[in-house]
């Protein structure tokens, strides 16, 4: 029971940072999502040791381990978009695929070349 309370509290910390990030984003009208602002704030507190890793790690590792679960409801939303994928819509999927291939190939190659030169 004690462990459950601890994990709930650790996950609540994430919500706290998320809402602080959202609040900063909306009050300053920033283009960076509130979740990213929350992450950067949280990272700063970890790096400065204000929040020690052991205080939050169990709850966070629990969430991170099963990250794909949280993407499922959004992905299921394609059920309302199936008509988009007929005809020209298939081209969109092709673009996403080709763009990804370009990124992996060129980025991997560039990085390998830089490292080859340095070593």
């Amino acid at each position, binding site marked *: 029971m004690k462990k459950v309370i601890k994990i709930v509290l650790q*996950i609540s910390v*994430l919500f706290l*940072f*998320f809402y602080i*990030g*959202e609040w900063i984003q909306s009050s300053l009208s920033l*283009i960076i*999502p*509130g*979740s990213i602002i*929350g*992450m*950067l704030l*949280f990272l700063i507190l*970890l790096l400065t040791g204000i929040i020690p*890793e052991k205080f*939050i*790690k169990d709850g966070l*590792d629990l*969430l*991170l381990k099963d*990250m*794909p*679960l*949280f*993407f*499922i*409801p*959004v*992905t*299921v*939303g*394609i*059920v*309302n*978009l*199936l008509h*988009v994928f007929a005809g020209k819509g298939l*081209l*969109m*999927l092709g*673009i*996403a*695929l*080709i*763009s*990804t291939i370009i*990124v*992996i*190939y*060129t*980025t*991997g*190659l*560039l*990085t*390998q070349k*830089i*490292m080859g030169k*340095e070593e």
Partner: protein
Amino acid sequence: MRDIMIGAVFLILTIILYILSKKLYSMFPNPFTLPIVTVSVLLVVLLFYTPISYDTYMIGGQWINFFLGPLVVALALPLYRQRALIKKYAKVIIIGISFGSIVGILSGVVLTILLRFDTTIIHTMASKSVTTPVALSITKAVDGNISLAAVFVMIAGLAGAMLGPILLKLAKVTHPVAQGIGIGTASHAIGTAKVLEKSELAGAVSALSMTITAIIVSILAPAILHVLG
């Protein structure tokens, strides 16, 4: 009261299917058996062939969605843990990830413009290389289509898991750091999971790349879209 019951049913169904799909994936590890693929396909088929609507499903699904933003905050932890690696390979990591992030936005957006898609689709394509919660936040900010964004992100992830190793071989990319940057920058968590199977260093760099790509794209995508229309 009725809504709570319906919500609970779909929440529990999603979690049970996810647990079962993880077992399936551990028995048959394959891009087609990734839990996000199998569970999503099953649920889409269920909603398509029954009178249950997506909105009804989401009475339960919204409880899972509720965690998407906080999950991005949680990514600070792996980033914190990899801080020694970040220092060691700082220069090449920054150059590689910046390059890959920009190529990812530009290649997707330019192709979409060339094929004359409308503004919503162009804006949705910009964030396909980043992890889902971040892609959804960016897509919201640039007025794209959130469900479509999740589909593009999934394609980017699966393409990396399935084709990534072959592409890196073709390009003669042998260093684990270069492999991690290539796949992590293009294919976020799904690609990272695949790279991690082979090399811990490549996996760690991929996780780092996916995090930094998320930050770079969330800053650059709105700016690039603003310039390109």
